[in-house]
């Protein structure tokens, strides 16, 4: 094995190991920038959108109840997690306090709706209602994003 090639291969191994340790290191939480708040609300919108697809399947009786239940549970947990994350963090820009409050409220709404879907995954009427309310929640989330973008310098 030639020296230089051995060296580059060894460097590649270090490149694998060191950043791997960094990647697994816990990320610091606490400070929430405008961008991160934005990101959080966008993910809420995405969760609501996906929830509507699942609820829609229930509403049309075009899905399996175990699937709908498991998906509703997973998505609901993610919404709940997002709610807690947004509520716990300290804001970098205090002017966004209203938006953060609204975001936490929407997150809670979404989590609640998905929890209902989880409880009644076979009920078509419930599915249709959840789908409708999730659409409204998504609109609220999108409105918050628009406000945040408007506020951004």
């Amino acid at each position, binding site marked *: *094995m030639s020296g230089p090639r051995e060296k580059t291969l060894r460097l590649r191994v270090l*490149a694998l190991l060191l950043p*791997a340790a960094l990647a697994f290191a816990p990320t610091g939480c606490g400070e929430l920038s405008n961008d991160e708040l934005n990101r959080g609300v966008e993910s809420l919108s995405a969760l609501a*959108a*996906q929830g509507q697809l699942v609820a829609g399947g229930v509403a*049309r009786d075009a*899905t399996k109840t*175990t*699937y709908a239940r498991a*998906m509703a549970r997973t998505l609901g947990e993610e919404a709940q997690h997002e709610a807690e994350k947004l509520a716990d963090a300290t804001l970098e820009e205090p002017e966004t306090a209203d938006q953060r409050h609204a975001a936490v409220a929407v997150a809670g709404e979404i989590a609640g709706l998905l929890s209902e879907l989880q409880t009644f995954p076979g009920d078509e009427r419930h599915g249709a209602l959840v789908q409708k309310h999730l659409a409204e929640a998504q609109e609220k989330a999108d409105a918050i994003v628009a406000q945040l973008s408007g506020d951004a310098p």
Partner: protein
Amino acid sequence: MRAIFKIALGIIAAIGGFLDIGDLVFTTQAGALFRYDLLWAVVLGVVGIAVYAEMSGRVAAVSGRPVFDVIRMRLGFGMGLVALVASTFVNLLTLAAELGGIAIVLELLFDAPYSMFVVTGAVALVGIVALLPFGGIERFFGYGGLLLLVVVATVYHQDPNWGDVAHGFVPTLDSSALYLYFVVGVFAAALMPYEVHFYSSGAIEEGWSEQNLKENRLNAIVGYGIGGILSVALVIASGYLFHPLGVEPNDLGTVALPMQGAFGETGLLLALGGMLFCVGGAAIDSSFAASYNLAQFLGWEWGRYQGPRRAPRFTASWLVFLLLGIAIAQSGINPVEITEYSVVFSVVALPLTYLPVLLIAGDRSFMADYANGRVATTLGWLYFGVIVVLAAAAIPLLLVTNAGGG
């Protein structure tokens, strides 16, 4: 006509589950985030694994050397050991992700907790391996994986804008870190080395010789071609449904939503069934790859056909890897997250296991008349270049994009 059918079945059996959890996750995410723009990266990865697999299969058939024999011979003990450790680490992560994936799909189909399904799934895999012959195992998962053809049917049903789809096959390089991360991810998910290590060892288990070279080439082109078609279909199906809605697929169950949308409960069940077979086959392939690599590097007796009596260390190592995989899958880390890391680390380690095979495949003193011709040489070195670039970019992109979280 019968001959073609027989060949097709053989190919399907040889590839045994075209996609794994990495492909399912990255293609669906790529479609949702970038619609059809990453289709070129999927094709690039699929052609890459076909090239790597063809070379490895040819080397195994002509010289009787599986991948880690070639690696120890070409890199020597020291660097070979590095390759082994890196490869084993990646295979373990992959195995854990696949075992977790099996449990998630079972959870979506049946009402019982995830942790129970991890153990049940692993026990079922051990049973399948113990009871079925080697070829039977691959047939079982290969045919089952074909259930995913429902994704192709879904795309047909969706009838997307084909002009936009075609545009996605043209390579474009967006400067956004997230886009580049997914270029790496989609490529790496298609080019997972454990598949090739498994394939090359399987060739020797089946007693391949020069007579199998045509079969080897067909397996590489048609077998991975089918995998490519399925991957492309997943990107399109996901892009069509999720991109306009802004859905972010962070869960394995999301992969099946487009099929539910197109064909209701039937589509959903076919999709989940296909996913189960693909991920199950991948769990077997990755666990065996880990044992094959270890045994081959150290010179132990190895092989599924040898059985536990003639290859006890190989068998014991396989069980140990399975147990470790179960432990990691049970640790509470989301399998989808484990997948992200296993795919990214896999491409970082890829140059180490790819280069020796490329060198031996082109070496006339080992391969005689069957050494790389002009096409294989060109493609082989071209892909080495691509792999090195992506390997260097992978971890920085992983960190910058927070594993695709944005």
